[in-house]
Each structure stands twice: as C-alpha cells, then as structure tokens.
C-alpha cells in the first residue's frame, strides 16, 4: 500500500513540476540546442575604416560594395601663421575600393603627390571568429604605384622607373569590442631609387591599433617602423600617427596628426622626412562613403 501511494504521489507530482518549470525549461531547451549547434561566426568591425590611419587595415568593402575615399594632408604645423599652420598646402588622394567577393577587393586611387596613380588588391586569407576558433584575421595586400609627374630634366624616366610596389601581410586581432591591434610586415620595391646608396627593396614593420571610446568614436595609433640603413640619400624617419575615427551611418571620418604627408605606402613608409620633435606634423583627414551596387546574395 505504501509503495502504491508513493507511485501515486510521484505520478501526480511529475506533471505538476513539469508544468511549473514550463516557461523557463522551454527557453532552456532552445538554449541547449543552440549551444549544440554553435557555428564559428566571423568577427566584424575590427577597424572602422579600410585604413588604420595611413596603413591599410584588414577591413575591406563587402561583396559588391563600393567605397569612395577622400584623403587630405595639410602642410606642416611648423610652417607658421603665414601658411595658416599648414592649411594652405594640402595634398590629397582619392580612391575607389570595390568588393569582388567578401574576401577579395580591388582599388584604384590617385595622389596629387608626384601625380601618382595606384592600384591595390586585398585578399582575406583568415577571418577571426568570435569563439577564437580562428584567433586572428589575416589579409594579403598588394599595391602598384605609378608616378606620372613630368620632369623636363629627366627624360630617361620611363614607365619602369616610375613604378614601385608594395606587398604586405596584415595580421589583426580584435581582442574585445574596444581593442584591436594590427601587425603588418611590409615589403616595398622601387624600380628606381635616388642613389646607389639606397636599397631597391625595403623592409618595414607596421604597428597599429584602435581603442573605441564610444560606440561610434575610436582613438587610433599607428607606428610604421623603418629599420635604418635602407634609405641613405635622405634623412628618413619612421612614421607615427595618431587620430580619431568617427562613424556616422555610411561615412567614416578619420581625423589625424602624423609626421608623414604621403598617403600611399611607398611614400609614407620609407620617405617620411619629418619628425614629431621638430614640429613636422601634418594635420589630415580621410572621409569614406559606402555605396551598394547590387543586392547582396542571401546567406543561408
């Protein structure tokens, strides 16, 4: 009889307890099955722009997205009041970047400095995932740069001599929502250098990072270390830049100060003659606008 009562009791209590925990247990059931089907979601927004400041970042336009960039660097702050602290002497670059796929993008640009055209290609080899299954994002970047400035005294400057190249490996990690760091081994090749004392092949290392201050504002820093002994005909320095990224919908505004006036890799990495200590500081900004050129393919 006692056993019988026990069975009765447990049989009665079982559905009751099930009913009581129904609300949360259904949600728990969903959570459990979601946890079982975890996918490796790639992180987004390691940086806000396709440039940290001067150097390329691991970011690129998505498939069929077109990005238009306008970049300005004014003259040196120590030009004084007569030149309005550099604002009278601006150089600029504008460029278009286009995403062929979500991993591959191409770009073209033109700088006023030496009337240089550039063509770039960026390929995302690895995408960091939120669960750190892949711990970093890695891009390969290639650039070709062609100066078209006419020199009456140098008629021998043919196409080959006017061309230089960049190859870079961009390694970035988004540590958390606020902090991202990028390490960038850089190789530059110049078909023509100033003197025989200068190397045609240049190696450098870029260090860059950003700290988000608010959801739409970040503080960026970049140091492009140029080992000495490679460029000897002119007195060159490593490039150091500090700036802010401000994001507003389809635009990113980057405001910065830097000791490099050039905006393309063969110029700012190995041709930076200014130093912060002497006041050779350039104020500059980059502005991007994103356009969508087609309907994005539906993700499954």
């Amino acid at each position, binding site marked *: 009889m006692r056993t019988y009562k026990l069975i009765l009791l447990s049989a009665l209590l079982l559905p009751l307890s099930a009913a009581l925990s129904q609300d949360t247990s259904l949600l728990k059931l969903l*959570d459990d099955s979601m946890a079982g089907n975890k996918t490796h979601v790639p992180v987004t927004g390691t940086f806000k722009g396709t440039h940290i400041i001067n150097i390329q970042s691991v970011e690129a336009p998505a498939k069929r997205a077109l990005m238009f960039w306008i970049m300005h660097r004014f003259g040196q702050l120590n030009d004084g009041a007569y030149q309005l602290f550099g604002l009278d002497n601006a150089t600029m670059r504008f460029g278009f970047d286009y995403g062929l796929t979500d991993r591959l993008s191409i770009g073209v640009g033109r700088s006023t400095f030496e009337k240089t055209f550039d063509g770039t290609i960026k390929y995302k080899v690895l995408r960091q995932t939120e669960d750190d299954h892949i711990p970093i994002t890695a891009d390969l970047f290639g650039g070709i740069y062609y100066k078209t400035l006419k020199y009456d005294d140098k008629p021998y400057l043919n196409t080959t001599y006017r061309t230089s190249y960049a190859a870079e490996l961009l390694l970035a990690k988004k540590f958390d929502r606020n902090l991202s760091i990028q390490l960038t081994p850089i190789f530059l090749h110049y078909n023509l250098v100033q003197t025989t004392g200068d190397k045609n092949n240049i190696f450098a290392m870029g260090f860059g990072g950003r700290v988000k201050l608010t*959801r739409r504002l970040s503080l960026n820093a970049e140091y492009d270390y140029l080992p000495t002994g490679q460029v000897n005909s002119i007195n060159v320095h490593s490039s150091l830049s500090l700036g802010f990224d401000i994001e507003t919908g389809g635009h990113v505004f980057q405001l910065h100060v830097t000791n490099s006036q050039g905006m393309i890799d063969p110029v700012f990495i190995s041709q930076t003659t200014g130093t912060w200590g002497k006041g050779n500081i350039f104020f500059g900004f980059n502005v991007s606008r994103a356009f969508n050129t087609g309907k994005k393919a539906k993700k499954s």
Partner: protein
Amino acid sequence: MQARLTTDKLYLNSNNKYNNMTKKALTAIVLIATVHFAHAQLYFTTTGFAGFYSKTQFEDIKAENNQVYAVIDVNKKAIAFSMLLNGFVFAKELMQEHFNENYAESDKYPKATFTGTYIDNIDLSSGAQTTIHVSGTLTLHGVSKPFSTAATLALANGVLTGQASFQLVPGDFNISIPSLVRSKIAGKIDVHITANCKPRN
C-alpha cells in the same frame, strides 16, 4: 513515459484486493495525469524566420534571420523563441555591421528571446489557422519587457506553423538612435515571425 504507464497498470492489477472507491478515483487521476504528461507534445524548429522592417521616406531597411529557434508546447500552451542577433542579414553589409556593433550590441547581448503562454482553447485538428493571444516576456538588448501579441497557429501534415506580426520601439529596449540617422530609422519597427515546427520527442 510508456514504461511508467505499464508498471502502474501491472501494479494495480496485482493489488485488486485493496479495490475500493477511493482507490478507483486515485487510479483514475494517476492515469489521466500520466497520460496527459505522456501526451505533452513539443513542436520545435531551428530554422524559424524573423524579419524586421523599417520604412521611412529616406530609407527602407530590411533584415531577416532564418535561424530562429522556436518551441511550442500545445498541451501547456507555452511558446518560446530564441535567436542570435548576428543572424540577421541586411542588404547592406555595412548596415549589418552597424546593427551589430552600434544598435543591438550583439557581442554583449547575443540573443533575443521570448517566452510566454496563451490561454485560448483551440482545436488544431481542423487544420485551420487559429488566432491565439500570446503573452510573456520579451528580452532584447539585455532588457526584459512584458509583451503580448496576437498570433496564429495552424497544424498541417504534422507541421505546426506559428506566425506573429507586431511592432517594437527600439527605445523601449534601450537602443538609442543618434539624431543624425533618426530620420532614416522608423520610430516603430515592424516585426514578422514565422516558425514551421515539427514534433519533437
């Protein structure tokens, strides 16, 4: 549950000398309760649909998620939904990034969930679409709010389809929209949910 039911019956049969009115009543309760519990039927999906739509004169925004987890218990009249916010796909990749980074903050609050019940007595066997009134708790962007809406249920070929359409105000869930883009994002966002749930044991 089948095993328990069998044991109960065997036990009752072997003890019929204790048979009296009280016991009969108790037995009936046990059987009803047990049968009721054994019957508890869950309908479940991992590929439900959630879409939200914002229409203004400047910009139409559409985002859709086809990885919505949903479960409906027709006996308990209970419903639960759960979805990852980074599962929403936008036409513009940049918009999707901004949604996750700036609005939903899906790194901090990865999921939107709903858990609730309905009180309507409905007969699904007819196969017709039936309206129910669901109320419960909606959690989004770390904010849990009491929430109720009309929804429909329809059972066809063993698949229980639940649908609901309602509006949400981003501000109710502490999602702030900067003044610069306020004209491009509707004050009330239209939300559509569809879940084709299959029986789950």
